[in-house]
């Protein structure tokens, strides 16, 4: 009995710093934030003195704001594209670097390195590629002269800007997702492949019927990570397109490539309307949780127990 009490004490003592940090930086700010979303908080120095409740005003305002609705739709399309591209690329390179390729460890490292570069820097780097490098290819090689046309710049049109965002997002994140797939693929017992080969299964059949079901756990994780990360994309968006070019939606001129996170940021810190930004962040949170729950429960059902 005495021993048990001691253990409990030790247990809580070890846990306390983590719990404390978790409460201070996650739980409390979350509820404070949710509270602020119901007020007219606008970042004045004496916020406490003038704060008043406005009910759901911030939420209704958000849902009638064309920029917010547009960015919701834009973010959804971006997320679908990005999740697809990242996972396809990641699984392709994962298969490549787990095959008998020479220098496969060098490739693994190469694919992973972009993940270590900050998104802001990546954005500026790729902005240079899209705005300077690609057009200069067009200028110097006659065959590709169309690339040098100002109208054909990737970042000058909304659909191509979206593709540019997906390219950069995938380039950054596919290497990380690849690592998860690599770990999963290496965990698949070789006997299964041997047995399949004896039965005459081709590469595609082996992939389809052995690899995919066997790495279903990895899919649950990678889908979750890519979904949430695409939804939360901010830094690349901020540095690569800054929201441009503009477009028209519901007869309002708005920025055409503004993802949700950036819309929230702009509402809060450019528009100085912190309460409205907070309300949007709450909506954002609810949507992410809903999407991830659906996705995780769907993927869970597909997992195979060994």
């Amino acid at each position, binding site marked *: 009995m005495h021993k048990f009490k001691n253990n409990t004490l030790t247990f809580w003592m070890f846990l306390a710093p983590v719990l404390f940090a978790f409460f201070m930086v996650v739980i409390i700010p979350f509820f404070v934030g949710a509270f602020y979303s119901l007020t007219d908080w606008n970042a004045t120095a004496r916020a406490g003195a003038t704060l008043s409740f406005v009910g759901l005003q911030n939420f209704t305002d958000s849902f009638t704001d064309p920029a917010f609705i547009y960015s919701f739709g834009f973010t959804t399309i971006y997320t679908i594209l990005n999740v697809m591209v990242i996972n396809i690329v990641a699984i392709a390179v994962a298969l490549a670097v787990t095959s008998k390729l020479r220098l496969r460890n060098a490739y693994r490292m190469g694919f992973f390195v972009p993940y270590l570069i900050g998104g802001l820097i990546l954005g500026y780097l790729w902005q240079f590629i899209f705005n300077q490098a690609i057009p200069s290819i067009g200028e110097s090689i006659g065959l590709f002269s169309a690339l040098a046309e100002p109208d054909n710049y990737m970042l000058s049109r909304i659909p191509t800007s979206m593709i540019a965002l997906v390219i950069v997002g995938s380039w950054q994140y596919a290497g990380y997702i690849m690592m998860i797939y690599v770990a999963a693929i290496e965990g698949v017992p070789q006997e299964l492949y041997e047995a399949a080969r004896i039965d005459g299964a081709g590469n595609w059949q082996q992939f389809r019927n052995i690899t995919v079901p066997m790495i279903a756990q990895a899919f649950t994780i990678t889908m979750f990570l890519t979904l949430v990360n695409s939804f939360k994309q901010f830094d690349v968006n901020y540095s690569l397109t800054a929201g*441009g070019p503009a477009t028209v939606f519901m007869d309002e001129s*708005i920025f055409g490539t503004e993802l949700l996170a950036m819309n929230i940021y702009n509402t809060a810190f450019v528009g100085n309307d912190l309460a409205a930004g907070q309300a949007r962040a709450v909506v954002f949170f609810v949507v992410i949780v809903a999407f991830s729950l659906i996705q995780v429960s769907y993927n869970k059902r597909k997992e195979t127990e060994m």
Partner: protein
Amino acid sequence: MKKIVALTLSMLMVAGMAFASGAQEESGITLMQNKPEIDAMLQEYGAAWSEANGIDVTIKSVGGSSGTTLGQQLRADFAAGEMPDIFIIAGIEDYREWEGVILDVSDEQWVDDTSVAFTVDGDVYGYPVSIEGYGMAYNADILEAAGIDPATLTNLDAYRDAFETIDGMKDELGLDSVVSMAASADMGWVTAHHNFNALLSNGLPYGDTSVVEELQAGTVDQERLSQYADWVELLFDYADETVLTTGNYDDQVGAFATERAAFLHQGNWVDPNMESANADFPMGFAPHGSLERDTNGIFVSAPSFYVINSESANIEAAKQFLNDMVYTESGKDFVVNEAGMIPAFSAIDQSPSGQLSQSVQAWNAAGNVYSWNQYQFSGEFRDQTLAPIYNRFATEQIDKQEFMRLMTRAFENNAE
């Protein structure tokens, strides 16, 4: 066990005393400013001043192209009870936020030596940090080669002719485009702040906010707007399309610095860029041509002001620090030569070395200046409402008529 408890307690007490004494120590002044580019010079000047006067000076610089803004830092410091003794306000919006802690400095000596101090109802509160100005920066060599006298560029028609002439000689002059203009999403401050101000203040007496007030009431003078829209269209038409629609600050300024554009729509803050690009051709500012009638002046303002914290324990030291930047040789030297700023005080007669800064100083000395009225509109209105409209105009999604309609509607919605 007891020993450990005693030790812990005594350590806590020592720590507590250290903190307490730290809070009581209030000799010295803290200055917070928002120009990271002059941080090193200001630190050095502050240290020298501190040595000469025996008062500690702490300089904090926040802001720049990214990260925390001065306003956010001030709010945090205010909440923490660590408000600096001298800090920066940009105008009336900031003044209203900090009104409770801003000291009335009407009796200071420097007040008589400047025309751009920050005043509210006749009382002086803000010490102008420097003067900044913008207009159409021109490359004098190119204009001369094209046979254009910059002094004639004072109205829309003059610009139309000049742009057409230069455009026709582009190959001969080695230009990509006539004017270096930017309107991409992250250059909204060029269009929806600086260029927008031409609509608000061009041709009006300094400090006249009549157009601003009309627009804020939702009344739009269509004739003035139409001429302004012509001016915007002219700039967009004669700009390099890549710089205009996808370029960033470096692209825009670079095109002018490397003599690929005859005009640049920027202000004297590009002087350091010109220096680092070794652009030593003669250059200066011409007025904006946003009206059919002559407007012979550029947009000049003191965009930020030092204010003294009225709750500071060292008000006298703070006052002296600001005064010394105007009336001591080392202070003058810091402002003009070290920081390269255009002094806002007549007591400082040196000139900064940058050509565009000198041009601003000359326009200012001649009194041919128009106000910066763009800050009378909220940042949200400029960045979120107007900037996309300019961007659509620049990318030719809309024509002049539609631009005017959208601008008019934006003002009407803003007034509601």
